């Protein structure tokens, strides 16, 4: 449990994103409007991460465990040294799953065919 009152962090971020969309985007042009659009995308990304972050963290850790690695750094090092060469199909399958999780937060449209 967290001690904070309403709104949640996700709802706070959402409120700022809505303000950017409603007032800032419509009241700006050119470079400033472009940067407002980037800010909206960033906040939407944070909202998605806050929604699925815990679940994704658990899934990612389970994949690392399955490959006998404590973290990404160990997995990357073992791929480089060839230690996982006998199991590369599985390595690729699990790394691919993590990449899809990252994209589902960073830019879900990219996953559309």
């Amino acid at each position, binding site marked *: 449990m967290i001690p904070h009152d309403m709104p949640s962090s996700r709802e706070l971020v959402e409120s700022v994103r809505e303000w950017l969309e409603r007032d800032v985007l419509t009241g700006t042009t050119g*470079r400033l409007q*472009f*940067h407002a659009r*980037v*800010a909206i*995308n*960033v906040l939407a*990304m944070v909202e998605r991460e806050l929604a699925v972050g815990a679940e994704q963290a658990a899934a990612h850790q389970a994949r690392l465990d399955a490959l006998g690695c404590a973290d*990404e*750094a160990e*997995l*990357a*090092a073992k*791929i*480089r040294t*060839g230690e996982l060469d006998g199991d*590369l199909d599985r*390595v*690729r399958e699990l*790394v*691919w799953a*993590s*990449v*899809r999780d*990252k*994209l589902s*937060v*960073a*830019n879900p449209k*990219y*996953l559309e065919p």
Partner: protein
Amino acid sequence: MSTPPANGQRNGPSNGSATERLAAQLSSVLDGAEVTDLVRLSGGASRETWRFTAHGDAADGAGTRPLILQRQRAGDGRDMGVEASVLRAAGAAGMPVAQVVASGTGDDSPLEASFMVMTAVEGETIARKILRDDEYAEARRVLPAQLGAALAQLHAIPVDAAPGLVEQDQIAYYRGVMDTLGQPHPTFELAFRWLEQHRPTSPRTTIVHGDFRLGNVIVGPDGLRAVLDWELAHLGDPMEDLGWLCVKAWRFGSRLPVAGVGEYRQLFEAYEAAGGGRVDPDEARWWEVLGTLKWGIMCILQCSAHMNGFSRSHELAAIGRRVCENEHDLFLALEGRW
């Protein structure tokens, strides 16, 4: 880069006296031609770009013409003189490029830094406009062949035509960059391993542009007008330029693999027809995979500029979260090829 170019945008108010001083310096390197309308177009981390009009410069038969100045910033160790010599060699070989009018290198140059003055070529550089606007429909039709022919012309230039260009092993170089950044990526390690195990067996060595793609070319309604941005030129396998041109990021959302305007076969056939030599599609693909990996690492680098305080910006920060797009592209490019 993925951000909109700053073309046509004046970055901040110029200090009047500094601009006047630059105009006087430009006049001195253009045999006393009068310099007017001097405006800064963009200011990158390593160089400034200015546009101006020269009246009465001797090389132009004392006429009036628009010119472009590129001036290097202090602290950038690259030698713009090498770039100027490559650009001159490319022009001599018949490639569509801006003509170098004057150049100088080092702190004792008349402009207090390395510089190049080039003819201004009219046209569009913004990729999304070239790919979408009706005005460029005919350009899109002819670009695949024009891009292939231009690369064939470049790769036919003798390597000693532009002294000072160097060759380096890109896998070793980018592995080093990754290690310096300290953000390990398993997907990139899988790609590095694939690249090492599938290296092209008999690469040629030619002059390579190094950043040949939409965004770095000027296009008119009639097609390709000039190839720009030669600062990454080096010696290497000519297939590097063909592969880079096909990297997914440089399709800017289009489904067509070659610069977002054409099919692989159109590029390869035009390249071969213009004397570029036979293209092995698998070798071009190898370079496309390396290019995709390189662009991913460059995204980490851009994000690092924010993270390390060099240039605080939410735009740069957000690019860090685009690295997974490159990882996704690598998996797609290597599907069925592992």
